C-alpha cells in the first residue's frame, strides 16, 4: 500500500497581525521578523492520518511538495514523525504558483513517480486558504475525491471516511485509488521521535526539477490576476470597563450592557 501526502510550507499563521508585511513585487505577505516558515497545519494532520494507517498496515508513506526555497527542517518534519520518503519538486519556476498550476505540476510528478493507492492532502493551505489544489488534482488524476476527513478507515480496497459537516458528520465510501483531504478534527499530529529525527537527518529527498517534468506551466493559469494586497483596518475604539477589582468590573460590565440595551 502506497500513500502519498501533499505538503506545503507556509508563513507561520500564528504570527501576530503586526508581524506581517506586504511584499509589493511578488504581491505576497512576508514575515517582518524573517520568522521561518512552518508546515501547513492541516498537512500535519494529513501526515498523521497517513501514519495511523502505517501503524496498522505495511503502508509506505511518501510526502511530496512543489515550491522553491524549501526549508529542510520544515520539509523533513514528516520524516521525523515517521514518513518514509520525501519528494521535492523544486525550482524558481515553481515559486508563487496559482493553485490550478500547482495541481497540474503535482499531477505530472505523481504520474512520473507512479500513482499511489491513496493521496492525502490538507483541507486548505493557511496562506491563501484556498482549498483548491486537492480538488483539482483529483479532477486531473480522475480519482474519487473525499473531503474534510476527521477519520479514515481502510478495508482492503475500500476506504471509508468520516467527513466533518456543520453540526455532525457523514460517512463516505469509495474504492481505492482515492484522494482525501484531512481536517484538524482528526486530532493532534504526533511528535517527532528520536529515531525519526535520525532518519530525517540521513534522508536524501528525491528532487525533481522543471526539466524533469514535461510541462508548460503557462497553459494552466486560471485567468485570475491579483492586482494588490492590502492590510484590513479595524476602526473600533474599545471602551474599557474597569472596577476596583475584577469582580466589580464584571458587575459594571453587566450594568453597561444593560444601559446600552444589549441585554
Amino acid at each position, binding site marked *: 500500500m502506497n500513500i502519498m501526502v501533499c505538503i506545503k510550507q507556509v508563513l507561520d499563521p500564528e504570527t501576530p*497581525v503586526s508581524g506581517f508585511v506586504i511584499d509589493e513585487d511578488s504581491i505576497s505577505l512576508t514575515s517582518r521578523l524573517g520568522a521561518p516558515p512552518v508546515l501547513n497545519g492541516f498537512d500535519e494532520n494529513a501526515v498523521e492520518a497517513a501514519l495511523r494507517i502505517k501503524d496498522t498496515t505495511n503502508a509506505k508513506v511518501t510526502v511530496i511538495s512543489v515550491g522553491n526555497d524549501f526549508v529542510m527542517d520544515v520539509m523533513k518534519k514528516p520524516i521525523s514523525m515517521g514518513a518514509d520518503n520525501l519528494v521535492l519538486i523544486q525550482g524558481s519556476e515553481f515559486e508563487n504558483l496559482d493553485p490550478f498550476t500547482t495541481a497540474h505540476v503535482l499531477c505530472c510528478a505523481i504520474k512520473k513517480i507512479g500513482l499511489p493507492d491513496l493521496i492525502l492532502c490538507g483541507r486548505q493551505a493557511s496562506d491563501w486558504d484556498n482549498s483548491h489544489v486537492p480538488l483539482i488534482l483529483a479532477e486531473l488524476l480522475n480519482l474519487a475525491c473525499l473531503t474534510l476527513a476527521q477519520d479514515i478507515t481502510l478495508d482492503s480496497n475500500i476506504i471509508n471516511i468520516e467527513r466533518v459537516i456543520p453540526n455532525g458528520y457523514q*460517512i*463516505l465510501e469509495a474504492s481505492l485509488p482515492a484522494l482525501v483531504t484531512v481536517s484538524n478534527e482528526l486530532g493532534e499530529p504526533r511528535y517527532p521521535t528520536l529515531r525519526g529525527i535520525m532518519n530525517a537527518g540521513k534522508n536524501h529527498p528525491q528532487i525533481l526539477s522543471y526539466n524533469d517534468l514535461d510541462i508548460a506551466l503557462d497553459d494552466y493559469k486560471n485567468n485570475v490576476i491579483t492586482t494588490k494586497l492590502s492590510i484590513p483596518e479595524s476602526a473600533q475604539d474599545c471602551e474599557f470597563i474597569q472596577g476596583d477589582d475584577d469582580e466589580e*468590573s464584571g458587575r459594571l460590565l453587566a450594568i453597561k450592557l444593560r444601559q446600552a440595551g444589549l441585554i
Partner: protein
Amino acid sequence: MSHTAVIIEEGQLNSDGSIDHILSLANSLGHETSVALFSSDNAKLSDKLTRLDCSQIYVIKNDTSYGSPLSDEVIISSLEWFCKEKSVDLVLMNKTSWSLNIAPRVAFRIKASYAHDCIDIKRQGAEISCIRPVYGGNALAHISLAKNTSKVATIRVRSVQTPQKRSDTPIPITELEPEIKDEDLRVKIIKTVTQIPEGPDLGKAEIVIAGGRGLGGPEPFEKLKELAKILDGAVGASRAACDAGWIDHNFQIGLTGKTVTPNMYLSFGISGASQHMAGCSGSRNIVSINSDKNANIFKDSKYGVIGDWNLVLPAFIAAVRELVDEN
C-alpha cells in the same frame, strides 16, 4: 446573452435568508440572473420561494437512486451540465462547507476563472473584480477575473448587506434533469449524522457567548451555557478550545468553523486571531473579557474588561441574572 446563475445548496432554500442577500449581489452586477437549486421534491417549493427576484428558477432534479443527500460528484456534474446547457457565464454561490468542495471543481470543468470566499464583487465592463480575505484574514487580496472566460465566485456569507426584495409576481420554474455519468457515483454517502445542540441556533442567535483557550478547561463552558440560558443566547468557541476537546467542534466559530453575526458577541479568554475573527467580525457589538490588555480582540471590541475571567465571569453572571430578573 450574458447569464448569471446563483446556485443554492440543497435544503438551504428556506433557512436563513442568505439567498436574498446573494441575489441582490447578483442583480447588482447587471445581466440576467437565474437561481438554480437542487430538489428531489417539487412540492416543497412553497409559493413564497417562487418569488425570489430573478428571471428564472431552475430546479435540478436528480434521480432519487443517486442518493440523498447527493454526493459532491453528482452535484458537480449536474452543475457542469447546467452551466453548459444554459450558457451561464457567471456562477455565484455562498461560501459554505458545501460549496467549498464543489465550486472549484465546477470552475475547472467549465474552464472558468474562479474567485473564492469573496467579500466584495464588482463588474467593470467584461471584467469582474473581487476582494477576498487571505492569510486567515490578515490581508485582503484584490483580484480580477479575466474578460474572456466564464467565471465562478463564492461569496462569504453575510458580506452582502442589503437583501433583495421578493418579487410581486410568480417567477417561472423550469425543471431540469441533468446527465450523470457512472464515475459520478464513485463516492457514496453511507450515512449522515447530525447533532443539533439545544438552545438557539448559533447562526441565528442574537447573543453569542464564546470561550477560548484562556478558559483552561471544559468546566467553564458549563458557566457559559448557564449565561447563555439566562440571555437566550448560544455558546460558541475558538478552535483552540475545540481542538483541546473542551467543547465539540460543532461550536467552533471562525474561518473553518461557523460564521455568526449576532447583535452581541461576548468573548471570554479569546485572543482574537484573524482566523477566529473571520467568523464573528460581522457581529454588531463585540464585548471581550481578556487578561491581556494587548489582546487583538480588543481592537474589534466595543466594550472590554481587562481581567481574569475566573473572577469577572461569576460576578458578571450574578449581575446579569439580577438585571434580567428585574424585568
